[in-house]
């Protein structure tokens, strides 16, 4: 990274005269648990829909998602109220003030995310009644829910980074681990959001790389930049890879059967999501290139870093996609032989062939150019966001 070394670099600490954060506050844990619960809930919900199907508000997956919203909402509200009306002026001094209330910036953001998630509930309920129970991820109410979840996660990041930027080195290192974990959860949330375009069956289409280039560089670069630790983006991508792989291998051990007709495929266990994307390749390219270009013009960093990310993803995912459609991947390790209950046997072959999103070579190359431009712009956005987060102290 531009400013990274093997130890944390925190510019504010050089001139700080305020008391250092020496332990991990309870609300940081709450925030991390909330984001983790929501990410697990979303993964579980998608798996639930493909293996069990029946949907009520009270499915465990939904409860897991909403537990995250409620935990973040309650802990944020408690923290804001105790900071505003408590007798600890130091707390108010390290807070932002909104409408007369005091609290860390991250708590207000988390609260906003939680409220947005709750807003999506009546909206989604009406949408289902009006247009039927949908199976698409990107419907308007779902986008409101996902926006809420994502903002909830961002609030967690802001909360942790403010503590990090005021912490001593030992605590900062501990906080950094939580920061990277929350960053990883955000990465997972984003990957679930774009999953309709990031299936391995699309990995020979430009849309696959457009989706990755739009969604991944901001969060990877932003988190790495704010973290200040070397290979932070790679670590985030590796945590994602390991967790996703574990889910692929462990989720099918949970018995489940479809409770909605029509049942096209007999299912006896939860269906996991696809084999993880080898995102660590693109993340490593970002880490390496941005570190090499440390101190250079940020637009140049974004251009080289973004291009490096895109090229690394193509180099890795193009052959991996070819492998995943082959019979060699039809096993529990790579999991391409899991079929949702609603997939007719006559469509199993779709798991084992490429879907070509673009209908002509020209469209493909235009798509790839868009992916390159997106990677550039989004990397620049990530740099700006990361630099901003590194200065957040409240």
């Amino acid at each position, binding site marked *: 990274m531009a400013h990274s070394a093997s130890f944390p670099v925190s510019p504010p600490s050089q001139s700080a005269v305020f008391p250092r954060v020496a332990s991990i506050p309870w609300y940081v844990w709450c925030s991390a648990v909330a984001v983790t619960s929501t990410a697990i809930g979303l993964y579980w919900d998608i798996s639930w829909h493909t293996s069990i199907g029946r949907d009520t508000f009270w499915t465990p997956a939904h409860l897991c998602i909403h537990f995250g919203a409620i935990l973040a909402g309650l802990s944020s509200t408690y923290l804001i109220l105790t900071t505003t009306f408590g007798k600890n002026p130091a707390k108010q001094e390290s807070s932002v003030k909104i409408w007369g209330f005091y609290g860390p910036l991250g708590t207000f953001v988390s609260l906003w995310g939680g409220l947005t998630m709750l807003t999506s509930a009546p909206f989604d309920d*009406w949408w289902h009644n009006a247009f*039927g129970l949908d199976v698409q991820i990107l419907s*308007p109410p779902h986008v409101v829910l996902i926006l809420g979840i994502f903002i909830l996660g961002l609030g967690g990041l802001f909360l942790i980074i403010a503590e990090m930027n005021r912490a001593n080195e030992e605590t900062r290192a501990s906080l950094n681990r939580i920061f990277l974990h929350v960053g990883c959860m955000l990465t997972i949330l984003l990957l679930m959001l774009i999953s309709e375009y990031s299936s391995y069956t699309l990995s020979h289409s430009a849309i696959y790389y457009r989706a990755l280039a739009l969604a991944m560089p901001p969060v990877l670069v932003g988190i790495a930049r704010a973290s200040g630790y070397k290979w932070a983006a790679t670590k985030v991508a590796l945590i994602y890879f390991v967790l996703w792989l574990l889910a692929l291998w462990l989720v099918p051990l949970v018995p489940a059967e479809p409770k909605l*007709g*029509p049942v096209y495929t007999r299912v006896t266990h939860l269906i996991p999501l696809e084999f993880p994307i080898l995102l660590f390749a693109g993340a490593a390219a970002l880490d390496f290139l941005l570190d090499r270009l440390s101190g250079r013009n940020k637009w140049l960093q974004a251009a080289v870093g973004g291009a490096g990310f895109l090229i690394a993803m193509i180099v890795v995912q193009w052959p991996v996609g070819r492998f995943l459609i082959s019979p060699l991947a039809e096993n529990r390790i790579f999991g391409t032989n899991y079929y949702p209950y609603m997939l007719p046997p006559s469509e199993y072959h779709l798991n084992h062939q490429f879907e070509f999103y673009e209908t002509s070579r020209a469209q493909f190359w235009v798509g790839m150019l868009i992916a390159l431009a997106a990677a550039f712009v989004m990397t620049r956005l990530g740099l700006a966001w990361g630099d901003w987060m590194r*200065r957040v102290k409240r």
Partner: protein
Amino acid sequence: MKRIFLFFFAGCLLFVSRSSAHVGSPDVFYEGMAGPYRLFVTIRTPPMVPGIAEIEVRSLDGDATDIRIVPLRAVGEGSEYAPPSDRMLRSQADTQYFTGKLWLMGSGAWQVRLEVFGTHGKGDTAVPVPAAARRTLRMQKGTGALLLVLMFLLVASLIAIFGAAARDGQLDPGVAPTTPQRRRGRIAMAVTAVAIVAVLYLGNMWWDAAASGRAEMMMYKAPPLDATLQNTNTLVLKMGFSSWHDRRKTMLLDKIIPDHGHLMHLFLIGQPNLDRFYHLHPEQTAKDTFTENLPAVSAGNYAVFADIVRESGFPDTMTTQITLPAVPGNPPAGDDSEAMVANLPDPSDAKKTATSSTLPDHSRWEWILDTPTIHARRPTLLRFRIFDKDGKPATDLQPYMGMAGHLVIVKRDLTVFAHVHPSGSMPMAALMLLEKQQGSTSAEMTGMPGMSTAMPAEVTFPYGFPEPGDYRLFVQVKRSGQVQTASFDTRVDP
């Protein structure tokens, strides 16, 4: 801004579509045997698909104790594996009345399988259910108001958060913001407000597009039908393109199959008084074209209803209008039939049900009503008894196209049209597909209502009028080789 404030109401458009399987009569009514148990099944299909169908079952002989239900596709993939069945709720007050709910997850031809338990052991049957989205729902005012308030709160708090982040977020603890930092906070709030307006505007556009796109994709539309008269007596019916069906070709919604012996059942009903009725059976002369050499038809305007059944058992009723000159020809023959309704009462007088009808051969038909008034959405067995010219129960009834009788129900404003048989409101072709799937033989099928070889003088039809209003019923049976049609008028109360 007004448009943005209407964000949560903008998608609340009410789309209405004619239902499949008849017109304006989406519920399925079935009377039949589940092993030893005689059931009257009502399936209220959801207005939007995927959605929840409401199932009501009455055990007509009072011997069922438990009923389980499960939905499957009618044919093909998806009809093989069943999800776990649901137990129906048995009414405490009326122990032979059972209710339940089932998700229908897609449009097309479904079946609801019933397992019945009782004093005679276990019995089962399957009822065909065509599922198709008919309308979207308007957002309730309360929900809209709640969402509007939440939207204002979220927008205002987001602006405040951005302001605080720009003003205070990067300050060391205890340091008060300077004037430039305060200004930066205000600028951030202004920029955020503008950005939110832009996002809401774009979001509103996306919502409109998503809502109308979803409605367009989901909402059922019968194929358009074009009717023309050629060569003085040849009626040519050309089916138009239906994107709804085209999208669902893999669900066997393409090929047309015979329904009790004919690929199309065509009804011409005289306008505006419903005083002329023709039940004809055009031949398919091209993939989307049917032709009929008309019998003698009197001049006038006609409402045209054309019933077809797809390979999956999914029915379509296509509608159009045609004005015909006096068409020369012979009276209808074979399975074709006609009826003229004389002494048509003034619609304003049709306040109660006409329970008796006398035909030109002096036979008398009675509609036996269990209650003096008929209420909408209430499942009932419509019972008709036929007496010969001597006033004795008719003994010469014969199967008419394999059925004891056919009933056509038309609302005066033509918003409801249903073609019902003694087994129910579903096409016989769909029922036979399921019978075949379950391994029933044609001999067993004779056990279905209206299929008995010893034909009684009474014919019943399970049905529930979908909405209040004035209806005309055309009841058709075959007697001594001749098709007879009697008409009855009724007013259905709410």
